């Protein structure tokens, strides 16, 4: 549990810093609506992380239901989708079939994970992540400043699924467990999100 607390604490700190820096950008920006999705993404993820951390620290066990924290993570993904939406290519025809690869992967992952978790939370995860993956791959096809942000979102997508798959084959509460490597990579991807989003929305 110590490694989990250290891992979650580090992630929470990074999310807090990113949220504060994004909020400062929103405050100073002329077009404030552009920064709202990223601020809310960091807030959702950060609050969910904070709840998980506080629960572990105060109650000495993981929550009975993971809905409370999971909803924050799903909401964060929805806000990432809202951030990707203005960067989408204009014509449907130019998106091709590549974005549907993410939907296919999420559907397959849903069928894989259904053995462990409950139906509703797996379905919500598949829908939100599938949508984010679809939008990231669609934005990648449009040349421009938004591609870096799309790559960052794909990094979040891939590391989340890598974490979830490795959690199904739990290797213990130690650094040898791949789950924690992917979680540290996810923490780094949150910083990439900010840097790439700034490049996408600011002139």
């Amino acid at each position, binding site marked *: 549990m110590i490694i989990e607390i250290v891992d979650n604490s580090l992630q929470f700190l990074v999310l807090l810093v990113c949220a504060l820096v994004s909020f400062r950008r929103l405050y100073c920006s002329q077009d404030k*609506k552009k920064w*709202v999705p990223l601020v*809310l993404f960091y*807030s*959702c993820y950060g*609050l*969910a992380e*904070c*709840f998980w951390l*506080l*629960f572990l620290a*105060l*109650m000495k066990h993981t*929550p*009975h*239901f993971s*809905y*409370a*924290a999971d*909803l*924050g993570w*799903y*909401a*964060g993904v*929805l*806000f990432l*989708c*809202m951030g990707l*939406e203005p960067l989408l290519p204009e014509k449907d025809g130019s998106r091709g079939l590549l974005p549907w690869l993410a939907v296919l992967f999420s559907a397959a992952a849903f069928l894989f994970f259904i053995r462990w978790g409950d139906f509703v939370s797996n379905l919500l995860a598949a829908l939100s992540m599938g949508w984010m993956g679809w939008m990231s791959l669609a934005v990648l096809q449009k040349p421009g400043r938004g591609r870096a942000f799309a790559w960052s979102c794909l990094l979040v997508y891939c590391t989340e699924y890598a974490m979830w798959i490795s959690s199904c084959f739990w290797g213990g509460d130690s650094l040898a467990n791949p789950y924690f490597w992917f979680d540290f990579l996810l923490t780094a991807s949150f910083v990439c999100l900010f840097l790439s989003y700034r490049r996408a929305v600011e002139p």
Partner: protein
Amino acid sequence: MNYIENIYVCLIVPLLLAILCSTGKRRISMLFLLAGMTVCLFSSYINSFLAQSQQIDARLAAIEISPLVEECMKLLPVLFGLLVFDLHKRDAAGGILMTSVGFATFENVCFLSANGASDLPQLLLRGAATGALHIVCGYLVGLGLLFLWDMLWLRTLSTVALVCLVSIYHSIYNLLVSQGGWVRWIGYFLPLVTLIPAIHISRYVLRQQHL
């Protein structure tokens, strides 16, 4: 038995009379206040049912189940107004706030009936913290509605995501106040501290929307 339904009836009768006698914006505000108290009552039934069905104690239910149930229930009156009466966006945002106030008021009354009214400092702090919590949650969802009103899909998506956000915030509050000692004090002061930036941001958004 704490006869909370009887207390509910005593509280809403004057409100109902006032609603009948008033018109316009005042009537809308009081309707949402009444709706807030009503959904608080129904939330308590749903929370009790879910706690029983999942076989967890009241403390864990308050941390893990109640926040999501309460935030979803608080949204229902405004959703009804939007779908049936096609509310203006200012009325919708104000409606969420008044629903939150009604909810917080009735929740405090439930607390009083269960725990007595003798400890005034504790009641003041608890009342202020709970009121501030529900108002901050109401502000966040209301501001999201106002700020992202333009496109239906954006408005819907952001409302869903903001309800999730405020549910987490509510869960953190309930987790902190369920503990003892200094942790509980942090829990009580958390909504009071976040209320100040919430008011500041809401005034900014209202100015931007020319409302």
